[in-house]
């Protein structure tokens, strides 16, 4: 009897898996409505990437900005980086959140590819990412001057996605 139970373990494991797969069919992983849209950016106080000391929420406010979640391990981040540089040169304020990354690599990355960020803070454990509901890198949050999250973009910011909607989202922040 004991052996029978032991040999049923794979079946039970698979059954549980099946329940999740069943439930998962109704979910769309691409649709990521942020529960936070319309709500204030959650409070935080985290270490800066390039400067000493911490950065908190209040330091960022006063002007609309993009909060860009990035990491050096993320190939799509490399893809959007050049475009972020361009946006920054056009005067778009971009704040970076370095997500679950190695700090040395991250600093090296910015010195090599250019730094589009006004300021960069570090979420190496991914804790603030949970507050924000970050699904993965890259993600970009559109935040108005009051600190309210107005829009969330999952995936690469490039010329195409900027023209097809992100620009108008950005313009509405003002």
């Amino acid at each position, binding site marked *: 009897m004991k052996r029978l139970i032991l040999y049923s373990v*794979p*079946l039970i494991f698979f059954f549980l898996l099946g329940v999740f797969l069943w439930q*998962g*069919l109704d*979910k769309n992983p691409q649709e990521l409505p942020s529960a936070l849209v319309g709500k204030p950016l959650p409070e935080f106080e985290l270490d800066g990437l390039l400067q000493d000391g911490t950065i908190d929420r209040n330091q960022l406010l006063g002007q609309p900005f993009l909060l860009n979640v990035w990491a050096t391990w*993320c190939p799509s981040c490399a893809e959007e*980086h050049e475009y972020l540089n361009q946006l920054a040169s056009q005067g778009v304020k971009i704040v970076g959140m370095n997500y*679950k990354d190695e700090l040395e690599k991250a600093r090296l990355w910015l010195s090599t590819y250019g730094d589009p960020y006004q300021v960069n803070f570090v979420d190496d454990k991914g804790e603030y990412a949970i507050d924000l509901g970050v*699904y993965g890198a890259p993600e970009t949050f559109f935040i108005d001057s009051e600190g309210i999250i107005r829009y969330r973009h999952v995936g690469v910011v490039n010329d195409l996605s900027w023209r097809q909607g992100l620009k108008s989202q950005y313009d509405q922040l003002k």
Partner: protein
Amino acid sequence: MIPEIGHLALWFALAFAILASWIPLWGAYKQDLLSLSFAKPFALAQFFFVAVAFICLTWAFERNDFTVAYVANHSNTLLPSRYKFSAVWGGHEGSILLWCLILTGWSAAVAVNSRHLPIDLIARVLSVLGMINVGFLLFILLTSNPFDRLLPNFPLEGRDLNPLLQDFGLIVHPPILYMGYVGFSVAFAFAVAGLLSGNLDATWARWLRPWTLAAWSFLTLGIALGSWWAYYELGWGGWWFWDPVENASFMPWLAGTALLHSLSATEKRGVFKAWTLLLAVSAFSLSLLGTFLVRSGVLTSVHAFANDPERGLFILIFLMIVIGGSLTLFALRAHKISSSAQYEAVSRESGILFNNVLLVALTLVVLVGTLFPLVADVMEWGKFSIGAPYFNTIFVPVGLVLLTIIGVGPVLRWKKDKPYRLLQTLRVPAAVSVLIGLSIPFVLNKTHPLALVSSVIAAWVIVTTLIEMKRQITHGRHWVAGFAKLPLSLQGMAWAHMGVAVTVLGITFTSLYSEERTVRVVPGDELTLAGYHIQYHLTQSVAGPNFWAEQAHLTVRRQDETVSQLYPERRFYYSQQNPMTEAAIDAGLMRDIYVALGEPLATEGDDLPRAVRVQYKPMVRWIWLGGLMMAIGGGLCIADKRYRAKRYVQRPKVTGASLSS
């Protein structure tokens, strides 16, 4: 007309699959020779009709028959002929048809090469394969028919194949990968047949080994090809992304590798029988799970096919029946199987057990990492993504331990070994490999601690393997005679094990020492990367058959000697909006120079500044070279006389005798 013939052929194939899934099985139960004798013709008929359907679809592509919806969505009159051929499996419907073709192909191969097997066993195996085929044919006919017509208003021009897929890699990668995925269905069918009949002796394991080896070798090659394709085609220079679809092919590979090893213990010593059965069921179940993940849209992936919940539901029900059914059978039957053979703590059996525990643990790590976002979503914990950091943290240490025991395993003796003998045998190889392993990084001037550790362990695998081979060869003979006598399966194992070491070296050095720079250049600019001077000359327009491209010209020099001329492109396919990056690579055994062309950084004027990304990838080729060595090793093992000699010895036993027992 031709598409209708193809459609009809699929219904015929379904009819034969339904017959095949119960008549021979009933025959095995009733010991009825007539019903049993239908097993092989049914298998061949399924293969014939699916092949007819496949040829009809290919014909529709070659003839630009845009009345067929699938053709109109995946082809175009300008598409070069070789890509029209590969476009057959460039979308969901066609790739499932390819899946089916390969499944029936394996069944036919089993039917043809099984004269030495007891007829009732082979009848059960072919029945199980028939049942799986019923599921897939129903899936095609009910939800994914590639022969659906767009009538009466059909388009005059097709939409074209996704440009990412217009590439040599896509012609060869999916068929080979599917050969591996689907090949595990044979091991699965043998396991289920074994559970049904209750007869699981050493010969059962010996029959299964060549089939498992074949599937595993194809899967290895398929994964290596996929990684190589992603490397040069996606334009990022990455070769593995822990993407759900990659994981879906990696899990059956890990389970299949465990299966290969545990099968050898079951064959030689009669141990781990139930465990081997479970692995055989799991390897194919993970293949099916992968198919579900890719095609149901429950996970996001760069490779995912169009999402369709109806298809997802179908595959899920199918999974429940196939995997749930076989695991229920396992639970009910396997606990009665006893493995009588004993073995000591230090023995080949223990080595294989340890190998299996690690491989299965890694499989579970990948499974958890792949499915966690889904589970979290269902449990409403939020949306998660699990990235490379999770996988790398676990794979690096466990992989290195696994690699270390590869060096010990082949030296271990079956049943019982003396720790002292082991120590004595491995003393010299250990010293030699530390010496070689430490010197490689210093010669290359790449001395990261992890590079040292992994070089030593890789050298350890290669040195112990070579010494063991030398011992087997000389064994009191002259080495020429000895080499001729060396069983191919041993040679194969040596190739495969050294292949793993070569892959690990490639992964280590590429990961630690790749350099990359993205820079803004105007004609004449020069940049330096890892000792190479790369000069950008100009960008001009060139035309292709179904695209035009911006093509840049760069020269790579090293110490005033020209190494190569590179021509990276940004292609604009007439049928698509987004440009495609076509990287230019100067490939070499010790390093690749990889150049991808970015967008122009200004809109007007001559000599536009541009962004280029230049990467230096040391030893990246070793990753795929190792994969190739593993696949060659698998092939050598299959060719071993052991598996063929049995055919002649056992053939006389086939008739009636095995039935009446």
